[in-house]
Every structure is written in C-alpha cells, then in structure tokens.
C-alpha cells in the first residue's frame, strides 16, 4: 500500500478459465492445445452457414462443479445469449455466452490478503461461454492469420465484486482461485496455454469516500506477476491524473509487457455495445437437479479446509501446510507417504524438498512412489543412513522409478557404520591429521567441534553414524 497515501484502490476481477473437456462447447471438435492451425475445426466452430450449436454436457458439469466449489447458487435454468462484435477470429460475428440469466450467482472465495488477513471476495456470477479463435500477427509477414482451433473451446467466466484493495490482493485472490479450480479438477489453469485469463476493473477514491471512482478496464494480462504490475501501474496513473486535477475516462487499458506500461486501447479496437440478446439457437439451459447433488458429493476437499486439516492432523507449521496444499498432487503425495508409515514432519520436508525439486526438474512428474519414500525416511529415522546420504539414495531411486532404499544405500556404500572399531579408526585418523586444530580446541575454541565431526564424516565417506561420531569425538577430545 506504499505510495497510495490518501487514496484507496478498488479492484474487481473477471477471470476466464478453460474448462477441462475433451471436446468443444458446442461441437465435437478436440480441445487439444498446440495442434496445427485450423485442424480442430468443423462447420459449427467455423461458423459456416447453416451450422447450429449443441451444448457439451461435460462443460456444463464442470462449470456447475466450479460454481459449487466457489459457494455459488447454481440456477437450474439459465439462458445463453449472443454477444455481438466483429473480429476476424470470431467466426460467427458473435460469441455464445450468458448475460441476463447466468448459470450461477452469489458465491465467495476466502483468500489470504497480504494486508488485511483473511478476506472473502464476492463471486458475483459464474457463466459459461465459448472462446474465440486466435489472430496470429507474426506468422505471415504483413498479414494477420487466423487459427480457429480455439474457437468454441468452453470457458467459465468468474466475476468478482469490487472487493480487492490492492494489486497484491488481486493476485492473492487469483492464486486462491487457481488452487480451488485445480482441486475441483475443473481447469488446468495453465496461463501459458491461455487456459486462465484475467481482465480487471480498477478505480481509486479518497480514503473514506463511500462512492466508487470512475473505473477503467485493464486487459491483456496473462501472468499473475503481470496482474500485480499492470494494476499497480494503472493505479498510479489514476492517482497521478486525479492529483493533477484531471478526470479518469472510463476506457479499456491494455498492458504492454515490453514497455512495462498501460495504454488506452484505441477506440477502433473497441466495441462498447455488444447487443446481447437471448441465443435463439439454444433452448434455456436446464441443469438436472441430480447433477448438483452428484457434483456436491463428488467435490474434493478444498484447499482452505485441507490446510486447516494438515495443521491439526499432522501438526505441520502453517507455512508447510500452505506449500503442500498449494500443489494438489504434492499434498496427495505427502499424505500417501504418511499413510505408508512416515512421520509427518520428515515426510513434509521430503515432499517440499527433494520430491518437489525432482518433480520440477522432470516436467512435474512425481517419480518416486510414496511408499518407497516412506521406507527411505524410515532408514534415516533408524540411523541406517544419514540425511545427506539419504538424498543420494533418493536420487538413484527416483531415476530408476523404484527400488529398495536399503539395497540402494548398501550398493552405494552409504549404510552408516556403528561399529566402534571402525569409527575409532576414523576419529583417530582425523585427530592425528589435525594437531593444530586439536590444540586450539583444547585451548577453549569449542566452536571447532563441528569441524571435527565433518572431517570424520568425510573420511568415512558419509558412512559414519553422526551421533556415535559426536559421542566418540567428545570422549577423545576430553582426554
């Protein structure tokens, strides 16, 4: 909130998420990302004369699930509407959306605000619609090419109230929204593939003023970092304008990543009046009541509840719970590891540490089975391998996909040696090799102790049991 002084920022968000379906909203074409241009198309999504839309029930089911996950009221009857505008990648000259009677209204999403603690954003509405195609400006020189593979891909649009007081809050909400939608298995929420896109409405007002200021719409935001950046820039622009005695024009601003600036959309690019009217090609959308029951029952535990449970059930610090729950697969992995017999805290450390790093390096794949990790954690607990040695064992196991941790540790020669004869030999060797340090230690430089432990571990190539080494060193150095 630095630098805004007497001004309060008010932000509302419209988020488009691609629903995870195999086929498009109104035809049977594939929704797969990255196919050669204009290969996943048919008369319906090309908008050919005489073609008609028919609704993909799976898209509606996913939208219903999203609505329930966001605490919305799902309307058993809703209406499709046409949003009319001309654009080369909009093949029918209108987008089938919902307007006056959307699928769901009146929900909320609680998220951790960086400034105000736990805040609940109002979900004003959630409706279903089809995506447009893509205009490709860099494919053919001096020509705009149109790819209609995306045309007709199902989207849910999720609209909040003007509930955010800073760009940071807007971002925090989006992260929470992404989490919920991923948990509910509604959407990939993959920003790079455009399966989650954000438009924002933003205004500023004098602190304490009950009236909202004139808002602008900021479009073209395609990463969570940019949400914060673009909205920060627009907020600052508005405040500067008002402080200079100017007025805010109600207009659409585009975020220009390269210039790190927001600029007004040229009025030519804009079509203010969408001439919405009920889509005559589709009867009212009627959701069978049993779908609601099915989806409600089938809804997984959502992130907020899971974080709470992780803290209570496993005694995890809230930061650990947040990191684990933030990635559904990771949280599932953690729970499976605990279920296979691992202690919760070490299991959490492993999941957030080696497991996550390994997954990130391998395209998100969790390569090691939770049961194997649990056995490895057991070896550390029982003093069979040291923690650093266990990480080497993990690397081998993960690369192989499976294996017996103990056998791997043995084959690598990493099983800790508890035999006092061998230990004594390593300790003696270190002490006799470092007479200077021994003298300083004996003279009172007790902080040198870990140095001796490290040297013994090094000499033993990690096989010495650090606990026994410590005891033995203490005894020898005291002598």
């Amino acid at each position: 909130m630095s630098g805004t002084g007497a001004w309060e920022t008010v932000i509302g968000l419209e988020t488009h998420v691609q629903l995870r379906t195999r086929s498009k909203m109104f035809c049977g074409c594939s929704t797969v990302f990255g196919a050669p241009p204009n290969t996943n198309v048919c008369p319906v999504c090309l908008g050919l004369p005489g073609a008609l839309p028919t609704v993909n029930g799976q898209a509606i089911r996913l939208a219903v699930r999203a609505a329930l996950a966001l605490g919305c009221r799902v309307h058993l009857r809703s209406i499709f509407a046409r949003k009319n505008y001309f654009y080369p990648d909009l093949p029918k000259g209108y987008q089938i959306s919902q307007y006056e009677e959307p699928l769901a209204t009146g929900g909320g999403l609680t998220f951790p605000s960086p400034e105000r603690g736990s805040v609940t954003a109002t979900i004003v509405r959630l409706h279903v619609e089809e995506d447009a195609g893509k205009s490709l400006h860099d494919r053919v020189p001096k020509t705009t090419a149109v790819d209609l593979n995306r045309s007709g891909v199902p989207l849910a649009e999720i609209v909040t109230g003007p509930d955010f007081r800073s760009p940071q809050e807007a971002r925090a909400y989006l992260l929470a929204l992404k989490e919920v939608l991923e948990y509910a298995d509604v959407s990939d929420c993959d920003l790079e593939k455009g399966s989650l896109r954000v438009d924002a409405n933003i205004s500023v007002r004098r602190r304490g003023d009950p009236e909202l200021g004139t808002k602008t719409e900021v479009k073209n935001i395609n990463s969570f970092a940019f949400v914060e950046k673009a909205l920060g820039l627009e907020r600052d622009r508005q405040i500067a304008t008002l402080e200079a005695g100017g007025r805010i024009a109600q207009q659409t601003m585009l975020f220009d990543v390269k210039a790190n600036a927001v600029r007004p959309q040229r009025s030519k690019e804009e079509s203010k009046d969408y001439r919405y009217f009920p889509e005559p090609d589709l009867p009212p959308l009627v959701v069978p009541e049993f779908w609601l029951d099915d989806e409600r029952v089938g809804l997984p535990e959502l992130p907020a509840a899971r974080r709470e449970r992780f803290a209570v059930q496993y005694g995890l610090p809230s930061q650990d719970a947040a990191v684990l729950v933030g990635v559904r697969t990771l949280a599932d992995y953690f729970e499976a590891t605990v279920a296979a017999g691992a202690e919760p805290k070490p299991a959490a450390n492993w999941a957030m540490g080696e497991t996550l790093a390994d997954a990130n390096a391998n395209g998100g794949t969790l390569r090691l089975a939770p049961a194997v990790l649990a056995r490895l954690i057991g070896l550390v607990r029982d003093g069979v391998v040291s923690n650093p040695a266990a990480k080497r064992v993990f690397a081998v196991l993960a690369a192989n996909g499976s294996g017996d941790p103990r056998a791997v540790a043995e084959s690598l020669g990493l099983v800790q040696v508890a035999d006092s004869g061998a230990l004594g030999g390593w300790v003696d060797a270190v002490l006799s090799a470092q007479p200077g340090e021994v003298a300083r230690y004996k003279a009172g430089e007790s902080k040198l102790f870990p140095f001796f432990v490290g040297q013994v571990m090094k000499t033993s190539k990690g096989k010495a049991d650090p606990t026994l080494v410590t005891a033995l060193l203490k005894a020898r150095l005291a002598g």
Partner: protein
Amino acid sequence: MTATDQLVDRLAQAAPLNALRTPIAEVREALAAQAATASAGGALAGMPVVVKDNICTLEFTTSCGSRILEGYRSPFEATAIARLKAAGALIAGKTNCDEFAMGSSTEHSAYGRSLHPLDPERVPGGSSGGSAALVGAGVVPAALGSETGGSVRQPAAFCGVVGIKPTYGRVSRYGLVAFGSSLDQIGVFGRTVSDAGRVLAVISGRDPYDATCEDRDPLPLPAAPENLQGFVIGIPKEYFPPDLDPGVRRACDRTIKLLRDLGAAVRDVSLPHTPHAIPTYYIIAPAEASSNLARYDGVRYGPRPAGAVDVRALYRATRGQGFGAEVRRRVLIGTYVLSAGYYDAYYRRAQRMRSLIAQDFRNVFDRGVDLLFTPSTPTPPFKAGEKLGDPVAMYLADIFTVTANLAGLPALTLPIGRVNGLPVGGQLLAPAFLEDEMLEAAFTLERVVAPEAEA
C-alpha cells in the same frame, strides 16, 4: 425418354421463369449420380424435389440469393436433405429466392426476379418463389422452401400449390442458413396435400444437430377422413379486414361453406393482438438477422473485394457490395433495435407482444377450437415492381402468415379458387405439433374444393 430426361426437359422449358438457380447441365449430372445410389424402396423413391437456395446441399452451390455467397459450396448437407435422399428422393437443383429469404416476391434476389408461372408480369411470391413457381408450373411434384414469416405459404398461395409450415421444432434447421432463428422452419411445397405431406413426414423428427428440434418421432401421415364431423373450425375476424381483396374474400366464404357442408362446426373467433404481428415480426426477425448475418465478413468464405487497407475496410467492402438493399435495411433495423438504450423499448417489448400473440392462439384452441381457417394472403399475386418501392407494403403481404411463425404453430395453405385466373390460397392453422389434424382437414377439403373455379 427416361423419367430423369423428362424432368430435365421440363426444367429446361421452365428456364424463362428464372426459378432454378442450378445450370441444367449440372442438374442432369447430379441426377445421374443420385440415380445410381438412390434408395429404390424409400418412401419418396424417384420423387424429384427442388430445394430453396438457402438450404445446404453437397450437390450444388448454396448462395441464398446473395452475391455475398456467390459460388459458395457447403461442405455438409442439411439434415432435411440427407433424409430426402435416404428416402429415395432426387435433389433436382436449387431454386431462386429473395436474398437470405428476406422478401415476399423473389424480386430481392441478387440473381434476378422469378416469374409467376401463369403471368410473367407477376411475382410468384416469396421468399421461396423459385420453389413455388416450379411446383406451380408442374415441373416437380414437390419442393423445399423455408419460412420465417410466410415464405412458403405466401408463394404457395400465389402459385396455386399446397404449402406447409410445420410447427417450430418439427423439422431440423441444421443446414438451413439462418435468417431469424427463432422463427425459421424448413417448409414444403406440393402439387397436392399428399405430395407435401409425404415430404414433410420424411424430413420431420428429432435431430441431435439442432437443439431447437423437438425430441419427437417423424410425423405419421394421416388418412383423409370421410368428412369433417367433430372438427370445430374457428374463423378469426382479424383475418377478414374490410380492405381484404373481394375475390379472396369470396373464395374464403365459399370454402367456409364447404367446411360446413363437410360437417365441421364453424365458429367466429378473435385473435385480438393480430394487428401487432407485423411490427413485432419486423423487430424480432431483423434483430436475429443482424446477428445471423454478421458471419458474412469476407474473412473465411465468399467473394472478398480486393484493396481493403485494414479489416474494417474489408468488412465494409464485403458487406456493402455483397448485400442487397433489403438485407442492408434489415441488418440496420436489427442492429438498432438491439442497441443499448433501445433494447427495452423495441426488442424486449416485441418479445412480450410475441407471447401475447401466441397466447391469443392458445386461448382459442383451449376453448374447443381444433383448427383455424383464414385467407393465406390479402391479395392475389401482385405485379412485379408494384411493391418494390414501398417496403411496408411488401411486408404487409405476409400479414396473415407471420402470426404462425411468431407463435411457432403449424399452418398450411391450399388452393381454394381463382381471381381473374390467378390462384387464391386458404390457410389452415393448428395447435403446436397437431400437423396430423391439420393434414386430415386439408385432405378432406382438397377433395371437394375447386381450385380452378373463379371466385
């Protein structure tokens, strides 16, 4: 001479009517190809059917009477066409129509007007004028047209043939190029009630490709009852205004007497919101048209004028040159009535009036009336050019037909006499999805009516 040769001959002889859009050579070729694969045992085996140029076929171009779709070949065919072919019918070419089915005379075709088969100075009606003219001239026994406000019944009445507009949702619209989607239905022309009814039966029924098509079995074709005893037929007074053409009135009066003679109980009824039908129609249909025709932008198909400097210029050139005056007029009206600030005053009120018009019909049908009988058109066929300069006069040619489209009801016109040698049509209207009762009455009436008699 084979049947196909005779058909091609008849089509060639009818060329002066400018009713057929497909070159004769292409028709001959397509018929030969179809004859080789046609189902011989189907319900319409060997029946040639011509098709309005706004219904998608694989065989011929589908240009909707418009320059903007000149040469356009659909990569898929309408459900109705697929069903006709499966039943053994032969698709014998595409017929001329008002551009995008907007008109009542076929004068608004980019490919020239079609002529009335009995009087070249007169129009065959429209918008499905080419189909009506070819059936009226005896070239084919049946044809497909489309209706948004009377575009089958009005030309059928003008050309002295039977025309049926089914209940909205009876026939799939998949492959019918949209004009006013909430009003559009594919309709049929026939020389007789039987020809039209048989075609309707084949093309009707549920279709997963059209969400507005009702989940119903194909229409069973009823038999003609001996008489009309037990039928209550309502005569709505609003369809007999003082300025109704006297010849049309005489033909209707004579038909009402025939209905009584057949044993029907004839009752005067009122549909009080009828006067609002034309204004209501001319808000809703153009509104939907303005959106449905947005796709003709020169980006993906159709002719694209050269030299456009940017995409706006491309739109302007494509649409400005590609659409005729009547289409442009309706796109403008439709855009206006949907605009912010005007939507409530026009579109929303028109929708409310539309439900009142539908309620009028339900009120009458709920009080024991089975069918309604009215004139199909206010006048016999008019002369070419007569209404071209006056759009509202042209719109009023559909005054007795638009109500069935607004209310989604089935309606049928059949020839009931002549005025100065020109055909007059009488209309039967039925409650939704009661085409079978409407056809029973039409079969029975057809046996006694004298379509050639001067009124």
